[in-house]
């Protein structure tokens, strides 16, 4: 009798509260979620070919082959449900895939996970072995010098540098030849940007990727090495810890104001002057230029590190950024061609030209005059009637010029070129610009004054990624503040910062509201691609 009543109760509950089947996976409900939220990128048939796919590199996952990068299973094995849920819940950093936790309910996410498994017959094949590998716990002392030295030893001995480069910037000799399983060009990960790792930034995440490999990519599994006792499990951990040590301990926070301290005497004009190591550095993310055609959805430079210092007469500004190639470099021409082909289906007009050995470029932008309020010229290189003052540096010829930009297409050089020194060091550019704070041409050259919030923006081009002209990476406006050595700055600077932060806060809110209004597709891309 009791059992009957329980069954009856369950039946009633099931009919009244369909939500009770949350723990189950409903592929019909999952399809509805999929069509609404996923198909735009991943395609109606799950082949990774939705309408938005052509603007993405890396491309959206093709579910039909059931080949997944981020797993806890052995190389080539199907992912566990938990693996799939993690990608859905947390997204895949460094790609267009956002985190869906919070956007979709627990049930919706579980259902859509069940549905995407139906795109491949492998998941229905009961002979497939789906089991997470057993991972050991991270050994302690991973941040110590001895451990890191050991990790570095294995970085060299097992050939990581072949793709990831000697210093881990993704610039190894095999890097320009890499393709994913679908034949699209693929970058060897820049190991200095752990916050962009698809599988997560921690040493444990890295260890797991070493064990499982990243299926569908050139990244192999190193588990056989442990099985055959070429490496111990602890040694693989040391390697993971070494790789982790290449990135900042925390994901860099974007601070809006670059503070240039005032020093006495000569400024560090050389990129590797030891003085730079003692100065605070600021991270500014860059995104593809997607406003003006031809647009660019595959920027190779994801951000710049900026440092500044002045002595009351001159300013020295060091910009450092990761770039896999010292362009122009013929070793990268075929890769560049593949990138341009991959991105060619964009509605760009004119279409991307054939691959050419473009140089690398960087632009630092200021308004002509420091504004009193929040009004600034158009961030995207000004306008015909309201130009901006820029420093433009190119890798070949290796020089910097100053000039006025009146939009992306027009640049008129001025005589006030900054001095510029640059080094390319294993996948990283470091360029120091030096210029007098005051110049004779007060009408066109920004006059750099202390104690003011000077708007500044950055642009970068990786020639070997096919970047030239409007195909570039851009930032929005930030600020440069030349600090005063006098006690006054103690009061003024925080005030400026406060006002600026308040203004920016408002800006962020307004923008967020606007972005929210764009709906699913636009909002998703906005995270990395079009959030300009």
């Amino acid at each position, binding site marked *: 009798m009791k059992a009957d009543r329980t069954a009856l109760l369950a039946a009633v509950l099931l009919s009244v509260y369909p939500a009770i089947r949350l723990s189950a996976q409903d592929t019909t409900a999952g399809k509805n979620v999929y069509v609404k939220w996923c198909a735009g990128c991943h395609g109606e048939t799950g082949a990774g070919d939705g309408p938005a796919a052509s603007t993405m590199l890396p491309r959206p996952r093709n579910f039909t082959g059931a080949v997944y990068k981020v797993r806890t299973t052995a190389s*080539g094995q199907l992912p566990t449900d938990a693996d799939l849920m993690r990608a859905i819940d947390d997204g895949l950093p460094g790609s267009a895939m956002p985190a869906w936790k919070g956007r979709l309910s627990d049930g919706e996410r579980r259902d859509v996970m069940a549905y995407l498994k139906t795109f491949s017959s492998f998941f229905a094949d009961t002979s497939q072995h789906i089991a997470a590998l057993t991972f050991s716990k991270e050994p302690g002392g991973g941040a110590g010098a001895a451990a890191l030295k050991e990790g570095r030893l294995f970085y060299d*001995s*097992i050939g990581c540098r*072949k*793709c990831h480069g000697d210093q881990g910037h993704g610039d190894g000799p*095999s890097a320009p030849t890499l393709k994913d399983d679908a034949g699209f060009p693929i970058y060897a990960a820049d190991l200095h940007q752990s916050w962009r790792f698809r599988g997560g930034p921690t040493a444990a995440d890295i260890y797991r990727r070493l064990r499982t*490999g990243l299926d*569908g990519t050139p*990244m*192999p599994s190193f588990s056989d090495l442990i099985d055959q006792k070429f490496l111990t499990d602890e040694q693989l951990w040391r390697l993971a810890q070494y790789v982790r040590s290449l990135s900042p301990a925390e994901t860099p926070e974007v601070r809006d104001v670059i503070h240039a301290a005032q020093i006495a005497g000569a400024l560090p004009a050389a990129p590797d002057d030891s003085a730079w190591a003692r100065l605070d550095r600021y991270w500014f993310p860059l995104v593809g230029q997607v406003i003006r055609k031809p647009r660019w959805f595959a920027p190779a430079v994801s951000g710049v590190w900026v440092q500044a210092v002045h002595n009351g007469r001159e300013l020295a500004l060091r910009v450092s950024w990761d770039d896999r190639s010292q362009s122009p470099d013929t070793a990268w021409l075929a890769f560049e061609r593949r990138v341009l082909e991959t991105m060619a289906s964009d509605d760009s007009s004119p279409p991307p030209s054939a691959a050419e050995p473009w140089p690398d470029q960087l632009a630092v932008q200021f308004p002509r005059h420091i504004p009193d309020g929040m009004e600034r010229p158009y961030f995207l290189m000004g306008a015909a009637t309201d130009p901006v003052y820029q420093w433009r540096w190119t890798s070949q010829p290796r020089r910097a010029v100053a000039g006025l930009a009146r939009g992306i297409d027009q640049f008129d050089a001025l005589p006030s070129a900054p001095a510029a020194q640059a080094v390319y060091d294993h996948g990283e550019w470091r360029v120091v610009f030096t210029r007098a704070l005051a110049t004779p041409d007060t009408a066109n050259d920004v006059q750099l004054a202390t104690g003011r919030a000077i708007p500044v923006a950055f642009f970068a081009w990786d020639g070997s990624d096919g970047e030239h002209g409007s195909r570039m990476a851009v930032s929005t406006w930030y600020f440069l503040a030349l600090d005063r050595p006098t006690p006054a700055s103690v009061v003024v600077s925080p005030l400026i910062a406060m006002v600026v932060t308040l203004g920016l806060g408002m800006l962020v809110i307004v923008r967020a509201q606007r972005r929210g209004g764009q709906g699913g597709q636009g909002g998703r891309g906005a995270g990395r691609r079009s959030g300009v």
Partner: protein
Amino acid sequence: MGKLGSVAAVAGGIGLVALALAGWTRQPAVQGGASVTGKVKFTGKAPANPVIDMTEEPKCKAKYTAPAREQIVEVNPNGTLADVFVYVKSGLPASYKAPAPTGPVTLDQDGCRYHPHVFGILVGQTLAIKNSDGILHNIKAKGTKNRPFNISQPTTMTSERTFTASEVMVPLECNVHGWMHAWVGVLPHPFFGVSGTDGSYAIRGLPPGTYTIEAWHEKYGTQTATVTVTGSETKTGDFSFAAK
């Protein structure tokens, strides 16, 4: 294009069979049965295989006296085409049961090239992937009917894997050395061969029946032909690929 030319009995084909089967494609011994043997001809001007730039790998480079080339179109001195995978595509009786594999098939990475470049293996048979170079290779299998794998081999070592499903062909590649490609045909039966340095192939031990034979080449695609065999006879089936 699937003409098998003339399918005629040839008594002296056994020698060629042995030649074609020698080396890497160790197949289970098949007792009795019929055979199909033939040559894969090539007409037209063969494209030059790209020269491999091994500057980054002095250890591999040192293994060659002349610059090494990729092995995309290997035309033999006698005008035949090597590295063509020839196999029974259909026609086996439903009751046919393949003999158990007798040992592993070895794929060697030597001189930053794969040996062999094209080969066959049975479903479930062990593939022993050997790194004779002692430098970093990764070996990636990119099948669609089989699960993929991608193994790092940074030293002299051997890894073993098996395939679970029929698939012609599973591409194998090394991403450290973008020029390294090999192809493996995975079959549920031992009726396959690869054209060798004299262009000949052989399929032995066939039960009586009518079969569709397919010849596969990585650049020139596939051709099929139909052949009927009885008893222990040997029939000839030649294929011909033309330069594009």
